[in-house]
């Protein structure tokens, strides 16, 4: 805490620096800041001070809002991690439940679909009741996963509009989660983003056991998976490049830039148009 006003030691005329001072500063007590500012030569008069103050509070508060809303990237991270857990536990319980159900019912298929089917049956004995109930729990978990996926679809574009547009909200959220946050993702070089989620393969490569991985989780993107294997490396590189730019725009400005989508589309089109040997 200090006895200084927000304008002390900063270029009050630079809204970005002044805004940071407004956001991050503090004082034990208020003072007659307009007079002090004029006395200190920050502004020629109080009217001019208030103009500077206005620019500083607008800039600082806008940045603060953006940052606070960006804390939503942490919510997305919780969401995609929960999705993975739910997919895994739904499968595990569906296997257990359908195995049990198969011992008391005819025609039981495995997996979550099988569990959903069992969940509709009418149990006649305590064993059947428990097997049906267990399958229902497995189906519930799969539903929960889907509900969270819907949440990610809705929230992703607010948190990272460009990344979500280019990667789809779920893949965007996965990348953010793998990096640990949108800010952390924005600071990663494109080559790192390209192999996020392929850490095991990367370590194997670094230990000399394996070729360098060409893609991590971005493999799930149609522009990688749907490209001829021969050009898949190029496609992954191009996609990672644009996603890195999208993450940076999302982090530093938050503005939506539709031209990024077009640039990516064109780039992939050119790659796919290359002759395959």
């Amino acid at each position, binding site marked *: *805490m*200090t006895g*200084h*006003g*927000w304008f002390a030691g900063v270029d009050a005329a630079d809204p970005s620096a002044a805004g940071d*001072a*407004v*956001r991050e*500063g*503090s*004082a*034990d*007590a*208020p*003072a*007659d*800041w*307009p007079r002090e500012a004029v006395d200190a030569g920050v502004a020629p008069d109080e009217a001019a001070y*208030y*103009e500077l*103050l*206005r620019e500083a*509070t*607008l800039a600082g*508060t*806008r940045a*603060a*809002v953006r940052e*606070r*809303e960006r804390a939503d990237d942490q919510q997305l991270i919780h969401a995609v991690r929960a999705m993975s857990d739910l997919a895994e536990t739904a499968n595990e319980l569906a296997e257990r439940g359908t195995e049990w159900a198969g011992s008391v019912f005819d025609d039981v298929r495995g997996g979550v679909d099988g569990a959903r089917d069992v969940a509709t049956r009418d149990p006649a004995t305590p064993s059947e009741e428990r097997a049906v109930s267990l399958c229902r729990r497995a189906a519930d978990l799969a539903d929960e996963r889907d509900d969270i996926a819907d949440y990610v679809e809705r929230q992703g574009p607010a948190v990272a509009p460009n990344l979500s547009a280019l990667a789809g909200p779920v893949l965007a959220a996965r990348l953010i989660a793998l990096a640990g946050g949108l800010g952390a993702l924005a600071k990663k070089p494109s080559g790192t983003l390209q192999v996020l989620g392929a850490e095991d393969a990367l370590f194997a490569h670094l230990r000399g056991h394996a070729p360098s991985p060409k893609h991590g989780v971005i493999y799930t993107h149609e522009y990688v998976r749907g490209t001829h294997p021969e050009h898949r490396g190029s496609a992954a590189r191009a996609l990672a490049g644009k996603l890195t730019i999208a993450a940076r725009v999302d982090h530093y400005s938050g503005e939506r830039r539709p031209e990024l989508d077009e640039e990516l589309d064109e780039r992939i089109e050119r790659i796919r148009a290359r002759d395959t040997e």
Partner: protein
Amino acid sequence: MTLPDGVERRDFGDESALATRGEPAYGEPVVDGWRRWDAHRSKLGATLELGVDTGLAGGDSVLYLGAANGTTVSHVADFAGPTYAVEFAPRPVRDLLDVAEARTNLFPLLKDARKPETYAHVVESELDAIVQDVATRGQADVALANRQFLADDGRFVGAVKARSEDVTRDPGDVFEDVLDRLRDGYEVLATERLEPYHEDHLAVVATPK
């Protein structure tokens, strides 16, 4: 007459209502440049509508605590001088920023009104008024913590929401407790229940003691 300069009762076709002059902010009716200030949508509006003498005179320097999306503070900035608007939730502040962009004397701050040290380096001392509308437990504590910004003859104009303190207790009892606590630092000049505009809210006008 208890209305501040710059606040007038104007005719809006079907009925007369309070109004201020300024840039429209939230789709409110405007006649001849006068923006309708609906007492149903604003606790300060209701306080003035009910004839409470707030001590607000027009041209006052104001700290507004709990600015939300800026509905009320847009009117305050229309008739007041430098107006500091503090709000903690980021989403409404997006709207508040738009309201502030259209005004030269409105300074939006994404801050926690319970932590005045985080904006004491921005908000000036010796203010004419604090307007408070925070829907949080400990509304008297917020008023006391921000008392340092007020001039000795400044005014605290608050709307106390009973349900924010304790949903289970009788609002009258809650108001008594809040006023008791408020008297640790303020002299209470006037109180008024805000029915029918706002249920279980008490307008409080006070001055530092």
